[in-house]
């Protein structure tokens, strides 16, 4: 029983191989494909590096400000709070309106 099923499974996979005809592209196309992927990879790495540097410098700045007890840090937090409250309210309002329209 199990052997039969295993045979059927193998045959099914074989049929897929038979039914899919994909010949290899020529060397120039493959080389172009590789170069495109390499460029994408490099771009992705650069983006990740930039993001890492941005986060790292942000952490360093915050830490320095905390250690120096700089007033700019506290003023900054207050300004952020003042800006964030209306933003959150607007966002919540929009969300509830969207919910109403869906219902």
């Amino acid at each position: 029983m199990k052997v039969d099923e295993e045979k059927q499974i193998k045959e099914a996979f074989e049929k897929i191989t038979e039914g899919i005809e994909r010949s290899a592209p020529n060397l120039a196309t493959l080389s172009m494909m590789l170069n495109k992927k390499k460029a994408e990879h490099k771009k992705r790495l650069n983006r990740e590096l930039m993001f890492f540097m941005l986060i790292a410098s942000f952490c360093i700045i915050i830490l320095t400000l905390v250690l120096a007890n700089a007033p700019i840090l506290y003023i900054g937090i207050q300004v952020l709070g003042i800006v964030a409250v209306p933003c959150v309210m607007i966002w919540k309002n929009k969300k509830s309106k969207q919910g109403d329209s869906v219902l």
Partner: protein
Amino acid sequence: MKEFEEHQLITLAQQGDEAAFTALFQRHYSFIYNYLIKMTFNPMIAEELLQETMLKCYLQITSFNHQSKFSSWLITIATRTYIDLLRKKKRERGLFKRAADEHSSALKWELQLNKVDFNEVMEAISTLKPLYRIPLLLRHYYGFTYAEIGEILNCHEGTVKSRVNKSIKLVRKEMHEDEG
């Protein structure tokens, strides 16, 4: 002769010869595409994975140590790339699943175009989760040992064995459901 040529191409590619690498990949292109199609049942994902696999092979070619066949090494890279893709798309699973469903019908269409019937066994295999389909494919089509599959999937031999058995049970169940 062919093996000697392949060995030479690998060595050249490991030394940074891009032309040798493309020639090497061209030789295995159809093989790896066929593997990806059977693993994903989705021509769109197979195409995407093929390009990712090519890039990973290019970047990691120096780590190939000639202890296994080059094609087995390619299968390992392609499988791990697919697993990574599934993890990455876990958050957008709904969307990914919908796209997968749409494109598995693209596979049916492609097979029918080449006069191959998408039979009930294929249908049953296509419903399996990749977790079960991959070990089943590697064991019963490519003939890898449980230990080798464990190495490819980074899991224990016992786990592979139980997944293969479960996948057969699931295929059987799906086939009987279709009959009933």
